[in-house]
């Protein structure tokens, strides 16, 4: 026998699917923006910028779906927490998309025959891989309502933050070559974008824990002093 | 189908129409005879037969007494059945016996009172008006009880609940909510019982007998309209027979008036 409110729960599942698939789009964008950066591919960078429309479109779709569900179905309890979380999640998706665009926009600016620093490049590459895996893990954690997986994201994020600080330090010590210094500043910006992507995945992790436990706790990360857990 | 039912209705109405016609044809002229309503029957075979005043008043007096006895008791029993007894075995037994009583031939009540009160000369008299009233009351009682119970059951239980929930004791719920709400229905039922009582002859035969002169002494014999019809209609003298017709018309008219009253009250309350 069909459960009562079958339509509603179907709609909710579909909406969640739409929001989480946005994370797949983010991964795509992330991959391409980092590729365009390493190969100085301006055309690819341009595609990343243009494709952000898809992510923005996805945001609007999910947002509209949430409004509709709230107005018509009056979700409560667990359903309500999912809907509220999805609002956050889709926001994070949109922001992560914007970070990818920011990275892509830096590609033409960072010049053609530029001097490069191996350490910084390695660090950026590692950050990129980490960010990618974090986005993927965030999707898995939310979809699976997996609290352990969500909490693990915090651990991974400390690594990204560490790399970010390292790049900054390295850029400061890079030397007197003007071109090199300029390039390093751009790399700082890229690192910051990647670090922000990491923070957004932590937000998604917090939302996952909220959906499961009904408690909202901000995960302390290495970049901010530890906060006391708060319950609404 | 429709035609058949229509025809059946006409057939059923024919006797009624004939009765009314005969009553009017034979009795109406008596109404305009001088002294018909204002003088008592003389009781003599020859000469002026007199009027029917004592019969009319006697009927009214006896039925009034029967009403005073049967209505309060009847409504009381109905209240017991609906408010307190409900479905208990005792209440159901009472209901059963009340149903039986509605089917008892009216002459049985007369005979019962005859044996218990008349032959024993209870109260120092043989036939007496009050004994006839008691017999009539016994006859009217089951009618009052049944109609009252129906009306009382129609009072929604939500009203009783509302009154109880306000902290009213049961007796107040009955007297301040249930009775006022069902009042018009109770009145209608009572009027119908009275109309029935007015027309009953058999109970009066062995209990009140008759008298010619006007009397209000309840402990003595009294004249009544049904009895008058009963005796006069078989008289060989046509003039006396006509008195019977006039009395019959009067009786039917009085019963009709009571019925109309009952209908008026019923329609007023539902409006």
């Amino acid at each position, binding site marked *: 026998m069909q*459960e*009562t*409110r079958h339509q*509603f*729960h179907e709609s909710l599942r579909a909406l969640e699917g739409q929001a989480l698939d946005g994370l797949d789009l983010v991964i795509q964008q992330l991959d391409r923006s980092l590729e365009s950066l390493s190969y100085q591919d301006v055309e690819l960078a341009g595609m990343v910028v243009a494709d952000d429309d898809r992510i923005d479109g996805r945001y609007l779709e999910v947002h509209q779906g949430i409004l509709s569900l709230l107005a018509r179905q*009056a*979700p*409560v*309890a*667990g*359903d*309500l*927490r999912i809907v509220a979380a999805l609002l956050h999640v889709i926001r994070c998706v949109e922001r992560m998309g914007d970070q990818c665009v920011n990275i892509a926009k830096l590609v033409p600016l960072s010049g053609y025959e530029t001097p490069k620093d191996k350490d910084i490049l390695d660090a950026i590459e590692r950050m990129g891989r980490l960010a990618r895996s974090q986005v993927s893990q965030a999707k898995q954690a939310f979809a699976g309502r997996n609290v352990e997986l969500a909490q693990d994201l915090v651990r991974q994020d400390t690594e990204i933050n560490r790399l970010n600080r390292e790049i900054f330090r390295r850029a400061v010590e890079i030397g007197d070559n003007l071109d090199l210094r300029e390039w390093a500043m751009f790399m700082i910006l890229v690192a910051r974008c990647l670090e922000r992507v990491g923070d957004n995945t932590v937000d998604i992790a917090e939302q996952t824990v909220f959906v499961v*436990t*009904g*408690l909202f706790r901000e995960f302390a990360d290495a970049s901010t002093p530890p906060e006391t857990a708060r319950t609404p | 189908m429709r035609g058949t039912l229509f025809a059946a209705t006409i057939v059923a109405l024919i006797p009624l129409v004939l009765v009314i016609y005969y009553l009017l044809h034979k009795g109406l002229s008596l109404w305009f005879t001088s002294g018909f309503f204002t003088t008592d029957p003389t009781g003599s075979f020859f000469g002026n037969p007199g009027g029917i005043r004592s019969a009319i008043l006697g009927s009214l007096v006896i039925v009034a007494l029967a009403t005073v006895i049967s209505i309060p008791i009847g409504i009381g029993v109905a209240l017991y059945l609906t408010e307190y007894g*409900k*479905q208990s075995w005792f209440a159901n037994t009472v209901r059963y016996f009340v149903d039986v009583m509605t089917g008892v031939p009216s002459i049985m009540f007369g005979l019962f009172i005859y044996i218990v009160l008349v032959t024993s000369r209870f109260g120092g008299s043989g036939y007496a008006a009050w004994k006839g009233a008691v017999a009539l009351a016994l006859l009217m009682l089951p009618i009052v009880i049944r109609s009252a119970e129906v009306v009382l059951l129609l009072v*929604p239980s*939500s*009203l009783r*609940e*509302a*009154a*109880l*929930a*306000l*902290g*009213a*004791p049961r007796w*107040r*719920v009955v007297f*301040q*909510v249930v009775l*006022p*709400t069902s*009042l018009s229905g109770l009145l209608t039922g009572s009027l119908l019982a009275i109309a029935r009582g007015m027309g009953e002859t058999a109970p009066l035969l062995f209990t009140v007998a008759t008298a010619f002169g006007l009397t209000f002494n309840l402990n003595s014999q009294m004249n009544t309209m049904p009895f008058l019809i009963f005796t006069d209609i078989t008289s060989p003298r046509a003039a006396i027979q006509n008195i019977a017709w006039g009395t019959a018309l009067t009786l039917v008219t009085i019963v009709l008036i009571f019925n109309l009253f009952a209908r008026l009250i019923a329609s007023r309350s539902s409006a």
Partner: protein
Amino acid sequence: MNTPDTTSKEQADVSAGGTPAPQSPQATGASKPAVTGKAGHAVNLKDLNAYYGAEHAIKDVTIDFPANEVTALIGPSGSGKSTVVRCINRMHEEIPGARATGSVRLDELDVYAPDVDVTAVRRLIGMVFQKPNPFPTMSIFDNVAAGLRLTGTKSKDLKDLVHRSLQSVGLWDEVKDRLGSPGIGLSGGQQQRLCIARTVAIEPEVILMDEPASALDPISTLKIEELIDELKERYTIVIVTHNMQQAARVANSTVFMLEGEVIEHDETTKIFTNPSDERTERYVTGKFG
């Protein structure tokens, strides 16, 4: 089973059964008259069991209803919520074959104690029913005064009491020119408010409401809900409702019942955002019931 966090209110408001503590008048709004408030009164059920003949309708129910708060009872049909409420003012025993065991306390008063007069209990614990039931033979005025007349209570100023009662339910302006007209001539929503005025007029301490708005149109329902919100300042209110959204809008705390047992009892927000029991979650999200 969770109990709501209302310790401060309960401790402040325990008083001997029925006697109003002196208190400054509580105004409920500029247009409403100041009515002398009573100290809050709490109701406590402990191990309440009720039977209809052999059928065991409610099982070991223990609930605390905090003073001056609205507590809602929700649950599917047949879960026993109406039975619980009818045990509080002892209307349950009006049904032939029905009985109840356990303890129901109004402050310090044990409602089921053998020496307690049931009509006195019902004067302290008023009830509003699902279908509005004004007395059809009485005018609007008489309906409001009915509570007093039916209990043989003399009132010093009946007109004033009727006026205040009708005002407190927001009905005064609508009927002040036709107090003598029959109570049943009003619309459904007005009739229900009239019934509430009738209950309020006897100045109870607790008001029980058994699905008070389920027979009304949506606008009347919202008006009743607003009224409940105002009334809780002076009375402790228990409301049975099958409309979960209504419970969500109106109640401070909510009790979820299933098959005669209390499953969960907590702050309304918690019940509707993060219930502790799986069955509560499934019921409020509509997965069954």
